[in-house]
C-alpha cells in the first residue's frame, strides 16, 4: 500500500459530575462504595435516574459491600494503555453485598485459574484517591478489603478528568501520494473532471458534482501564481496545542487561468494591515526533505504565498470568488 499518515489525538476532557456521580466519587475517596435506592432496589453504581424507567431518583444513598460476588468475568491477557492494571487481570461484573445490580471493574486475581463465576471479591483501594472510578484500584479474591489510613477528600468531588489517547493510521490514497510527490518537486497538481471540466486540488480523487473517480489520466499542472480574492485576519484564542500568539491572516487565492480557488492560505511576509483583495501572489514550496511546521490546510509542501510585486488586479468581482 501507498503508506499511512499517523496522527495521535490526545483528548483531555474535564467532566462535571452532578449530585449523584459526585457523591459516589466522594465516597470512593473515603474507601466506600455507594448505591442509590430505587423503590426496593439498590442501583450500583448509582445513577440519577432509574435505568428501567428514567424516573428521577431521590438522593437516598446506601453503602454496599465492601465484598461482593462475581457474576461474570473475562480475562484480559494483554491490557491496553487505557486499562486500569498493566498486568493480566480479569474484568468482572461484581454484585456487591446489598446491591441489586453489578459493578464493572478489574479483579486482580494473578491468574485466570483463580477466577470463577460466583467467587467472592473485595476492593483494594489506592493509597492516593482523587474521586475517580480507579480510586478502587481493583477487586481482589476474598472477603477482606485492602484499605489505607487517612480520610477522604476534604471537599466534595465535583469534577473528573478523562484522558484518552488514540493513534490513527490514515492510509494515503494513490492520488494523494502522486499529489504529494508533485508537491515535493514544487509542482501543483490538479485533477480535471472530464465531464464538467472543473479542477480539484489535493488528490481529492473524484468530482463531487459528477460523482466520478478522477485518476492519473485527469491530472493537470496548475499555475503557481494567482490573486487574492478574499481574506480574514484571525485573533488567536487559547486552546490546548495552540501555537499562534499574534493575529495572522488567511487568504483565498485564485490561480491564474483556472477555476481553482484555494481557501484560507498562509500569506508570507505581508503585515496584516497590508493584506488586500487583488494582490498578486506566488506559491512558495518547502525544498525537498525540508520539514516545516505549517498550517495543515496548506497542500503538500506548500508553505504559503508571497506577493509578486505585480500591479493589483482591480476586478470588483474578485471578492466573490470563494470557491
Amino acid at each position: 500500500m501507498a503508506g499511512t499518515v499517523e496522527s495521535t489525538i490526545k483528548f483531555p476532557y474535564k467532566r462535571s459530575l452532578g449530585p449523584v456521580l459526585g457523591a459516589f466519587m466522594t465516597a470512593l475517596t473515603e474507601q466506600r462504595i455507594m448505591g442509590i435506592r430505587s423503590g426496593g432496589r439498590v442501583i450500583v453504581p448509582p445513577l440519577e435516574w432509574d435505568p428501567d424507567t428514567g424516573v428521577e431518583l431521590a438522593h437516598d444513598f446506601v453503602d454496599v459491600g465492601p465484598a461482593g460476588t462475581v457474576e461474570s468475568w473475562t480475562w484480559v491477557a494483554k491490557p491496553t494503555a487505557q486499562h486500569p492494571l498493566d498486568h493480566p487481570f480479569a474484568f468482572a461484573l461484581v454484585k456487591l453485598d446489598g446491591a441489586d445490580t453489578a459493578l464493572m471493574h478489574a479483579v486482580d486475581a494473578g491468574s485466570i485459574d483463580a477466577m470463577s463465576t460466583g467467587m467472592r471479591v473485595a476492593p483494594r483501594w489506592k493509597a492516593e484517591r482523587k474521586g475517580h472510578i480507579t480510586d478502587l484500584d481493583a477487586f481482589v479474591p476474598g472477603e477482606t478489603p485492602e484499605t489505607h489510613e487517612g480520610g477522604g477528600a476534604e471537599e466534595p468531588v465535583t469534577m473528573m478528568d478523562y484522558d484518552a489517547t488514540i493513534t490513527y493510521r490514515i492510509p494515503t490514497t494513490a492520488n494523494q501520494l502522486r499529489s504529494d510527490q508533485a508537491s515535493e518537486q514544487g509542482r501543483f497538481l490538479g485533477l480535471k473532471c472530464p465531464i464538467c471540466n472543473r479542477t480539484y486540488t489535493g488528490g481529492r480523487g473524484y468530482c463531487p458534482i459528477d460523482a466520478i473517480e478522477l485518476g492519473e489520466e485527469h491530472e493537470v499542472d496548475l499555475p503557481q501564481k494567482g490573486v487574492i480574492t478574499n481574506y480574514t485576519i484571525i485573533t488567536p484564542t487559547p486552546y490546548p496545542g495552540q501555537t499562534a500568539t499574534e493575529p495572522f491572516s488567511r487568504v483565498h487565492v485564485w490561480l491564474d487561468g483556472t477555476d481553482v480557488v484555494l481557501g484560507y492560505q498562509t500569506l508570507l511576509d505581508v503585515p496584516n494591515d497590508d493584506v488586500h483583495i487583488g494582490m498578486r501572489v506566488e506559491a512558495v514550496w518547502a525544498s525537498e526533505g525540508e520539514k516545516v511546521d505549517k498550517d495543515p490546510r496548506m497542500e503538500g509542501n506548500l508553505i504559503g504565498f508571497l506577493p509578486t510585486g505585480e500591479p493589483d488586479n482591480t476586478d470588483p468581482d474578485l471578492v466573490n470568488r470563494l470557491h
Partner: protein
Amino acid sequence: MAHDNDIAIIGWNISPMVRNTEHTEAQMLLEVITGAVTDAGITRKEVDFTCAGSCDYVAGQAFSFVQNIDAIGAWPPKRDSHVEMDGAWALYEAWLRLQMDDIDIAVAMGSGRSSTADPELIYSMEMDPYYLAPLGADAMSFAAIQARALLDAGKVTERQMAEVAARTRRDGKSRDYNQVTGDFDVDALLATDYVRAPLRRHDLPPITDGACAMVIARADKARELCENPIWITGFAHYSELHNPGMRDLRSSNSTTLAAKAAGIEEGPIEVAEIQSAFTHEEPLLVEALGLGPDTVINPSGGPQAANPIMATGLVRIAEAAGQIRDNGKHRTLGHSTSGPCLQQNLVCILEGGK
C-alpha cells in the same frame, strides 16, 4: 396484507471487504453508490433522498461525514441526512422519509475504516463516560463477559461457538467480497489460546474496511423500475439500558421487541442475516428472534467473514434481500446491533412477490 408493503429495496452494492483499504471513505462510498444505483437501473439524479451512517471516532476526525457528501452527487443540492449509527439505521431514516409521500427514491449507506486505529481503544469510548470508559472497558471485554454468562447458564458451549465460526467462514467462501473465509477444524480451533477468555480469536470478527449502499423506492416507482422489488414488510429497532451490569445478559429483550414490532410472527423466516459479530451472539440472537431450526443463519458468512463497522448491519439487510432476489426465498430478515452486549437491536423483514 396487514403490514407495510409500500416500500421496496430495488438495488444495492457491497464493497470489497479488506483489512486495510487505500481508499477514503468518500471513495468507498462513491463506488458503492454508483454500484447500487446501477443495480437499480437509475442514476444519482433520480435519487430524492440520501442518508449515510458513519462514525467520527472510527474515522478519527470531527465532522468526518462532511467529506462523504462528495460521493452522493449532491448538486443540485439534495435532501440528505446523516446518522452516527450503522447504515441499517440510515436505511430506517430513509424508510421513514419515503413515508412522507412526497418523494419516491432514497439511497441509504454505511461506511467505515475500522483499520485505522485499535478497536479496543476506540470502542471503550462509547461506554458510560464516568464508570466504564475511564476503565478502558472495551466492547470485546463486554462481549466476553456476555459469552461467559451464556456459558454459565448452559445456553451455549465453547464448541458451539467454534462451530459457528467454522460454519460461517466456510459459508463465507460464497461471497467474493469477504475478508476471512476458509475451512476450519473445530477441534483445532478449540485448541487455540483465549484472546479474551472465554473468547478465542475465531470468536471475534475481523477488523474490516468497507461500505455498502442500498436503493429503496415507494411502491409504484419500485414496480416501475424493478421486476422483483423486495418489500420491506417490517422494520423496527429498540434500545435497552446502557450499563451491562444492570441488564440480564442471558437474553436480548430489545431484539425480541424489535422482531415482534416488525411482525416476525406473521410467517416463517427462511434466512436470517444477523449482526452476530461475536460467535456466542448467534444462538442468543436466534433465540431472541424466536427463529427455529428451519431458518438458515448468515449464509453470507456474516460478520465473522467481514465486519465493516458502520456498514455491517446494512450488509446484513442487503444479503437478506439477495436471498429473495437471487435465491428464490420468500421471507428473510436482516438484523443490526450497536452498543455493549447488544444494547440496541434493529430488525428488518423482507418479502418477495406482489
